[in-house]
Each structure stands twice: as structure tokens, then as C-alpha cells.
């Protein structure tokens, strides 16, 4: 694996071995010395052109716990603010001999383009409204654990077969939904996406999913109820009349939770708007996997970094 740009580039075998590896990395997290020497001598640049706390921190920790040197660069305070193009900045750093770039950028497709500019590996940490593959991987990791530990599924190659994942929220502005849809297809889950018509991406009809606007009807079918954040900062005009109307139609309220299957669990990639797309009752419920997702973030990113930088010879 040279780059990690899209969740759709991964085969089922690759996904499964990444998730298995993440299990090993997760164990390391509970040790007092949380460090493995696997990436000693490698250098990883985290380039975040957009704000991020959990993704940036977890990539940084993942690199450090694998003994790589990690350097954070944000647009503010770098030569980008002097007007240097992203391409020139990256080529400069590439010439210094770094091994990988972890990039978050507001422009959809920017990260794919960047992969063509440099010799180093490129990992997509979120590009605009396009993709966020490591988020989808950590969601898959968390869901797989839930299917196995809570529901007692046989550990095998198809833990997602026969499972239904319902993704609800601001799908229009979400990169998480795109990566999740691609990964869940590879994993063989049934995926339903649900949003108000104004927040449904125009191309959704061609995705390998079932599309609905009716949250209440879809809810009882789901094994996983994944809520996505209403991204106010990306909204340029009114997509729904009021928050109350949004909650009435698409918020995961305490009343709605009662409609879920007993065995179903709740996910949210964070950061949450408590009281909007998800109520505090749901976020803090016993069947909420939200903190498990955060905890999986570092382990999954360690696995991805190891797959990309751990060896020599299988690079394309």
C-alpha cells in the first residue's frame, strides 16, 4: 500500500488485515509503555489545512507510538500564509526526505492531487466533502467489535453480512458518509442513508445504498444507527427551517431511541451537536459506541501507518 486516499481503494482482504492489525495496536494502548519501534527513523508530516482536534491528535499519537517522528504543520503559521502554494510547500518538505504526508484540506479531491506531486506516501485525513477513509476504518473497527462482543457474531471474514447500517444527518456536507458507504459495500453490509431532502447529496441515487428521508421508518431496521453532525460551518444558506424541525424529523431523541432494536448501537464520528442531531440521552446511552470510536482512532491509524510505512518492496 503506497497511499491511503479512498476507502474504496481497499479490498476486503486489505480491510480485514487492517482491522486485525488495529486490534493488536489497541492492546498496546493499554500498556504503560505505549510504544512500538516499527517506524523508527520514519518521518510523517501532518498537514492540516482545516481545523481538527481528534483526527490530528490521533494521527500524531499513532505516529509517535510507532516511533516515527511526526511534525504538525497548519496553514496558519506556515509558509502557506505567506502565499506559497500547497504544491510548493509539499515539494519542499518532500525534498527534505519525509516519508509520508497526512493531509486534511477543505478542497474535495485535493489530497488525490497531492499524491501526484510528491515521492512520499500520502494519507487522506479528510478532503472537503469527499472522503475520510481512516474514519470509515475506525467506524468499521468499532462496529465489528460490537457485532462480535455484544452480539456474539462468529469471528470470520464476513462479520457485516446481514447487518444494516443506517447513516443519518447532514450527508450533503459529509466526507464521512462517502467513505463509509464505500467501505460498507466492501464489507458486505446493507447501508441505508437518511437525510432531509435538502441535505441529501444529488448523486446519492447512484450510490450502493438505500436512500430515504423517513428516519422513523428506517430506524427499527438498523443494527447500527450512525448519526452525522449538522455542519453549520459549511452551510451557506438555510437547509432546514429551524433546529426544532430538524430534531423533529432527523434527531436521535430519547423517544426515537425506543424504536431501535434492542441489540442496536449508536455511533457518531464527532464532534457532536448535543441536542441537535443527537440528544444527550442517546450520546451517553449504554449502547452508544461513540467513545469506543475515539479510542479506536489511534489504533486504526497506527495500523494504517504501519501498512504504508512498515516495509519495503511492495510499493507500487
Amino acid at each position, binding site marked *: *500500500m503506497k497511499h491511503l486516499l479512498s476507502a474504496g481503494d481497499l479490498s476486503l482482504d486489505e480491510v480485514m488485515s487492517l482491522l486485525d492489525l488495529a486490534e493488536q495496536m489497541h492492546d498496546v494502548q493499554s500498556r504503560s509503555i505505549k*510504544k*512500538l519501534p*516499527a517506524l523508527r527513523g520514519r518521518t510523517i508530516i501532518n498537514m492540516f489545512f482545516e481545523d481538527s482536534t481528534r483526527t490530528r491528535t490521533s494521527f500524531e499519537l499513532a505516529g509517535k507510538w510507532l516511533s516515527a517522528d511526526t511534525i504538525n504543520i497548519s496553514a496558519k503559521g506556515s509558509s502557506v500564509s505567506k502565499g506559497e502554494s500547497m504544491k510548493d510547500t509539499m515539494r519542499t518538505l518532500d525534498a527534505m526526505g519525509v516519508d509520508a504526508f497526512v493531509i486534511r484540506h477543505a478542497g474535495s479531491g485535493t489530497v488525490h492531487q497531492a499524491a501526484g506531486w510528491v515521492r512520499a506516501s500520502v494519507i487522506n485525513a479528510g478532503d472537503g466533502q469527499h472522503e475520510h477513509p481512516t474514519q470509515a476504518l475506525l467506524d468499521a473497527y468499532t462496529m465489528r467489535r460490537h457485532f462480535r462482543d455484544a452480539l456474539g457474531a462468529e469471528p470470520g471474514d464476513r462479520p457485516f453480512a446481514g447487518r444494516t447500517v443506517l447513516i443519518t444527518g447532514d450527508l450533503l456536507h459529509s466526507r464521512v458518509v462517502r467513505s463509509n458507504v464505500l467501505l460498507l459495500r466492501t464489507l458486505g453490509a446493507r447501508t441505508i442513508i437518511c437525510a432531509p431532502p435538502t441535505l441529501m447529496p444529488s448523486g446519492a441515487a447512484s450510490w450502493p445504498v438505500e436512500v430515504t428521508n423517513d428516519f422513523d421508518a428506517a430506524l427499527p431496521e438498523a443494527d447500527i444507527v450512525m448519526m452525522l453532525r449538522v455542519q453549520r460551518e459549511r452551510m451557506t444558506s438555510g437547509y432546514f427551517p429551524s433546529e426544532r424541525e430538524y430534531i423533529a424529523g432527523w434527531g436521535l431523541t430519547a423517544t426515537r431511541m425506543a424504536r431501535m432494536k434492542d441489540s442496536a448501537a449508536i455511533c457518531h464520528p464527532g464532534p457532536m451537536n448535543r441536542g441537535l442531531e443527537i440528544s444527550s440521552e442517546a450520546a451517553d446511552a449504554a449502547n452508544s459506541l461513540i467513545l469506543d470510536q475515539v479510542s479506536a482512532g489511534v489504533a486504526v491509524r497506527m495500523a494504517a501507518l504501519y501498512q504504508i510505512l*512498515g*516495509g*519495503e518492496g511492495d510499493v507500487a
Partner: protein
Amino acid sequence: MTTTPTSPTDNRVILDDADVARAITRLASSLVEAERGTDRLVLLGIHTRGVPLARRIRASIEAIEGVEVPLGELDITMYRDDLRRQPTRPVGRTRVPVSIDGATVVLVDDVLYSGRTVVAALDALKDLGRPAAVRLVVLVDRGHREVPVRPDHVGRDLPTAADEHVSVLLREIDGIDEVRLGRAPAEPTPTTDREENR
């Protein structure tokens, strides 16, 4: 170094299943004798074939002493000194059920060759705690050390040529218990104890 049981290059059987069983019993009793009992012993099998081997040594200790010694497994892939020279390797499970601080850790592996795997295992142990002592138990010592490492208990000393090839086959993984010596297949001389983890 291991290959599939049907490999035509594995021509000479050095230990058969009865020999392997006797070697394991002897390893268990000499270990217990040298340590004067089982107090604070922790057995750690090194992936892949060290793991079932450690399990059998534990069963043997239980038969002799009536004590169940804590048993764990150690994957040293990420501690290998040649990690970067090869395609990305799959990583096995590391599971250490008890704290190794102050314990006598017994590393168990199938073949001792260059000794580099043991060095990697010692590095891995360092990240898990500080044992009072570390011992090394191997089923076969085939020589050709590249680092100053020496085993404490050996099932069989097996002088070999560098181009020879030792295969340890264990029931749990390979279906039979056997140690074979043959001509190495046409590939570069390995500088590590084993070529692959699985």
C-alpha cells in the same frame, strides 16, 4: 525456518514425534530444576511455533509440579532489525496475561539460528516491563549465531551447514510433530531465525 510438510527439500527426519515429546518433557524438567521450582515463572512463546511449544512445556511442568505457570505469547515482528528491508509483514498477537515486573520470563522458540529473533524479543520485553531474569528455551539450536546470544535449555543441538534448512513441524500448526533437516531451497541465506511469521 519452516516450510510446508510436503516440501521435497526436507529429506532427513532428525526428531520424530516421540523424540519431540521427550525433548519437551526434558526441557520442562530441566527448566524447573534450574529455577528451583516454578515461583514467579512466566512462559512466553515467540510466534509462531514458540506459542504451541510454550503451551506444551507448561502442560509438562503442570504434570511434574502440579502448578499452572502463567503463559503468554510474544510477536516480535515490529521489533525486527530487518523490518524495513522487506515487504510489510503481518503482525501476530502479543498477549502477556500477568505483569512481568520482577518475574522470571522464559522465552520459548522452536529454532535458534542467528539469534536476532531473541534480540528482538528482549527489546519487546523491555517495553512490557522489567523481569528479574530472562531465560531462553529452544527446541533446536542449529548454530550460526550472529549476535552474542546463548540458550539456557536446548531440546537438541543440531550442527548444520549454513545452506541447510531446519523445519520444525508441530501438531497444532502442521498436523505432525517432526524436526527435519534438508537442503535449503534456492533463496538467499536468511539472516534471521525464521523467514515468515505465518
